[in-house]
């Protein structure tokens, strides 16, 4: 049985090889005949295959140039396509100098195609043999992202593992973040002074994770505010944020047992315009003189205008953002600043919920991996370049491959 199968395979192989061989010479002769006088360059070989990692509708054509590009009068390669189901042919594209592959995105997944590539030299066409038949297809997985998937699963797995173990009651150590105590202190001072607090959750919409982190912090601040019966004023720049912030504060008031003290106007929309919003916030600051200002979310250039105005009225200011460009201004003008990741961590800290804290531990695993990878990579490179170590070179290349995203 097995022997039969082998024989069958051999027959197929030989006959197909013969078929290909029978085709080849005629075409190469043809192409040499057609080539411009004085040159005896070999044929252009063409391969066509389904474009990898895409949503279908695209075929990649690749070819080798035996040297036509170097000839004077070379004008480009013409790509010629035949739809083998309908038999229609058309030219697809003329590629410029130096290009040896082309993604034909005008194909249909329901047809099969065959491609020819012709070198255009002095208004002559030097044709290649036709490529094998090819059909484009959709892929279910982008194989370039394999390492992203693996590393992502490790980190997400770590986050979920620590969330679960925190849920089961495992004590997790996390160092304290300077600035978090300041939040309660600031609310307390506003209460003492009988002045309102001002909360700005950044100027981005709900499609920014920083805004959501800011709202979570708002949740715990609002609980304290509700208990102390302090006034809170929250101007917002996007209507969706307004709705979400109202939900957040309302929930805090309900939890604190004072649903009657809640009022929708605590959160009010001003304008979607960045600087119009700033003008309004500045106005609120100098007129209402809040005792504490919170700037937690995604900020842009307005960060310093608000923080300096807040500084000039002598408010306690706590800021936090993951916009690297704005951090310096908050650091310079505010009393406490949550730097980058600390903004995301703060919401978990303040909730005090073990599951939230567990997720921070998971992110730390990611940082540990990052540090180890960087250090291993550096040591491997050093050894590889100093002693020509093969195994170190292998590690170096593996790391490069793992983390290359392009």
């Amino acid at each position, binding site marked *: 049985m097995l022997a039969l199968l082998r024989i069958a395979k051999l027959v197929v192989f030989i006959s197909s090889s013969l078929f290909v061989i029978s085709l080849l010479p005629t075409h190469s002769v043809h192409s040499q005949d057609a080539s411009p006088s004085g040159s005896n360059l070999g044929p252009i070989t063409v391969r066509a295959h389904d474009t990898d990692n895409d*949503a279908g509708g695209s075929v990649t054509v690749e070819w080798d140039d035996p040297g036509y590009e170097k000839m004077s009068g070379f004008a480009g390669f013409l790509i010629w396509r035949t739809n083998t189901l309908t038999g229609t042919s058309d030219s697809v594209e003329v590629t410029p100098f130096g290009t040896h592959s*082309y993604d034909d*995105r005008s194909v249909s997944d329901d047809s099969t195609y065959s491609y020819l590539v012709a070198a255009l030299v002095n208004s002559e066409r030097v044709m290649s043999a036709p490529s094998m038949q090819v059909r484009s297809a959709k892929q279910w997985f982008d194989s370039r992202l394999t390492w992203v998937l693996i590393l992502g699963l490790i980190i997400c797995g770590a986050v979920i593992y620590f969330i679960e173990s925190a849920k089961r009651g495992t004590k997790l150590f996390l160092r304290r973040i300077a600035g978090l105590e300041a939040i309660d202190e600031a609310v307390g001072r506003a209460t003492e002074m009988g002045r309102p607090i001002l909360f700005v959750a950044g100027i981005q919409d709900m499609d920014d994770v920083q805004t959501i982190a800011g709202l979570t912090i708002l949740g715990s601040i609002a609980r304290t505010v509700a208990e102390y019966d302090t006034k809170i004023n929250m101007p917002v720049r996007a209507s969706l944020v307004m709705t979400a912030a109202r939900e957040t504060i309302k929930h805090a008031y309900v939890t604190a047992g004072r649903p009657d003290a809640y009022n929708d106007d605590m959160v009010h929309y001003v304008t979607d315009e960045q*600087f119009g919003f700033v003008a309004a916030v500045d106005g609120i600051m100098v007129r209402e003189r809040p005792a504490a200002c919170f700037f937690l979310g995604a900020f*842009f*250039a307005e960060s310093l205008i608000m923080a300096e105005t807040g500084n*000039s009225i002598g408010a306690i200011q706590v800021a936090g953002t993951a916009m*690297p460009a704005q951090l310096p201004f908050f650091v310079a003008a505010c009393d406490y600043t949550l730097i980058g990741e600390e903004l995301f961590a703060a919401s978990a800290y303040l909730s005090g919920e073990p599951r939230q804290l567990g997720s921070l531990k998971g992110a730390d695993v990611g940082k540990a991996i990052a540090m180890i990878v960087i250090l291993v990579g550096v040591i491997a490179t050093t050894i590889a370049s100093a002693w020509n170590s093969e195994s170190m070179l292998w590690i170096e290349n593996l790391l490069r491959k793992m983390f290359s995203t*392009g």
Partner: protein
Amino acid sequence: MKKFLPWIILVALIIVVALLPKPLEISPTVSVIVTVLLGLALTGVLVMTMRGHLIGRRTVFLFIGASLTLPFFMNFQMPIKVAPEVQELYDAIAKLPPGSKVLAAFDYDPPSAPELQPQAEAFMAYAFKHDLKVIIMGLWPQGPQQADMAIQKVLQQPAIRAKNIKYGVDYVNLGFQSGNEFVIQRMGSSFRGMFPRDIYNTDCDKIPILNGVDNFSNIDFVFNLSSGYPGTVEWVQIAVDRYGVKLGAGNTAVQAPSVYPYLSSHKLTGLAGGMSGAWQFEQATGEPGVASTYVLPQTFSHMVVIGFIIIGNVALFVGYRKSRQEGV
């Protein structure tokens, strides 16, 4: 009396301005005197601060205002040196052969125009003079309008007017498309899908310059002028990372530091950052424009800010010594 002081100053200022000759220009000698006076005033502030009188915000504001206004009337020349990342940007553009298709993404609005508009003008002038075909688009609603303003301005240059630049042949403005980075994403598969018509509602199939342009592989260079989100970061993340285009950028000075990592990882080919990037770019392309007239006021204001920082630190140091002496 004190209540009316600002108004009196205001009225006096208006009278002075009305009496001034127009346009006003100060001779080099007077310029030097004004500079020295400004320096003396700063020294006065230093002495006051050392004696323990911290000056108020308003005095700082006044100094900044003066240091930015007065140099406009002065006559000085400052040498300009081109930074390597600006040179890299210029080299990348200069390497493009005539007829190359350049996608210019205008992702900023009027507030950032002082920094980015000069870069836009220098770029457009260079492109027109060297026969680069420019395709304009914007991820910010006001971006394409800024592009149009830059074009109208450079088209008035005699050398460019002589080239007989034609809309649709030498450049096209595709307008704004909402959707932030998703727009770039979709352009990766099809430009037409995202921009079926140009800003004037003309079908893109009828615009000669767009012939054969359907995705990033038909574009030789992308030049992005950006002042925030969406901007250069998104272009790097999607157009460069996923579609491998060559990208150069002009950024506001604030945005620039956050894209430096991409410059050293070679995802970004050249960067002009802020106003100094603008005048260096003007210098590199040989298109001196408005940025070059800002060199002097900019330098003055820098000096004043640095002066204030030094004053603050001298005061701190003197205060520190004093408190130690008193402690002993």
